[in-house]
């Protein structure tokens, strides 16, 4: 029974230590990437005078470029449809006849949710900016109205004090 109670505590402490480890790792990575980044000044200074490093960096750049080229090459839109049709063609007869299979035969590639939302980025940002401006304006207007009111009251009180006297003014303003 006691052990049953203790286990969650142990788990929690383990979890905490794992979280700490993760945090430390991320700090270390950040610190290391700052000083050992390719764009770091001391690296750039070295690369300028080292042909071997220049060659290596050029090679890595070439690989990255080739990878992005391979990614950017486009295929025909119906490729998924054709691939599905061909693959379904070798499956069992019962599977081929299923409505899901029919749906797959006419499936078209859909962009990811993040890609689909990409076009809404600018309007959403604009709306957010408008809301922020409205909020700031509203806050500004009300605060300045309050300040104006309090200043007016002070001036009026001062006028009454000078003309009627302090006691009467206090009576007027407290009621």
């Amino acid at each position: 029974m006691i052990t049953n109670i203790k286990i969650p505590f142990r788990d929690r402490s383990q979890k905490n230590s794992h979280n700490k480890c993760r945090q430390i790792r991320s700090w270390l990575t950040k610190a290391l990437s700052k000083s050992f980044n390719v764009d770091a000044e001391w690296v750039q200074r070295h690369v300028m005078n080292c042909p071997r490093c220049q060659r290596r960096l050029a090679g890595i750049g070439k690989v990255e470029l080739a990878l992005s080229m391979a990614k950017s090459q486009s295929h025909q839109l119906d490729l998924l449809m054709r691939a599905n049709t061909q693959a379904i063609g070798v499956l069992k007869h019962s599977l081929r006849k299923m409505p899901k299979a029919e749906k797959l035969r006419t499936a078209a590639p859909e962009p990811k949710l993040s890609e689909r939302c990409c076009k809404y980025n600018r309007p959403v940002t604009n709306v957010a900016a408008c809301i922020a401006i409205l909020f700031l304006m509203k806050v500004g207007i009300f605060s300045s109205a309050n300040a104006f009111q309090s200043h007016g009251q002070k001036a009026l009180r001062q006028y009454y004090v000078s003309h009627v006297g302090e006691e009467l003014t206090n009576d007027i303003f407290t009621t």
Partner: protein
Amino acid sequence: MFTESVGYELWGEVAGLSAMEASQKWILSAMQRHGPELVRMLWRILGSEQDVCDAYQSTFLQLAHYEGRQKPKHVKAYLFRTASNTAISMLRHRAAEKRTLSKATNKAEATGPWMNEIDCKFLAETLRHYVAQLPEHLRNVITLRDLAELSYAEVGRILGISPATARVYRCKAVQLLAVWMNK
């Protein structure tokens, strides 16, 4: 009595088969779920639409016949690894065919497709050629991470390694490819 028992057995077999067929619906679900990602990865590895269709078909055929038509424990991992292996073996086959063809026409490879110019197709083809030559562990990481665009965590899960190891392998693969591509 004997015919009756045989009949029952047959009926049992048929029932078992139909149950198995019904249970193989997951293949279609897997196709629906991972199909677009698989096609994208295969296209980036192979760069030929017909080859993509062939590799895709072969992958799902292997999935349908996996260990007595059973569902693998990790369908996504199985699919991606099978597809990538199939595509790489197709690439190698293609390269071998090219080599024999170039030998037959007495053309040196250096003056053929590997000209030293920046051309989109040429660069992508060169990369494919060298990716196929990478050691398996490095090749798997580069195909899953860069061509299938999976996260390091997913790559690690598929290959049974930690994300940090996947990062290291990717780095090594890029270095090796850089040396080969700079030759």
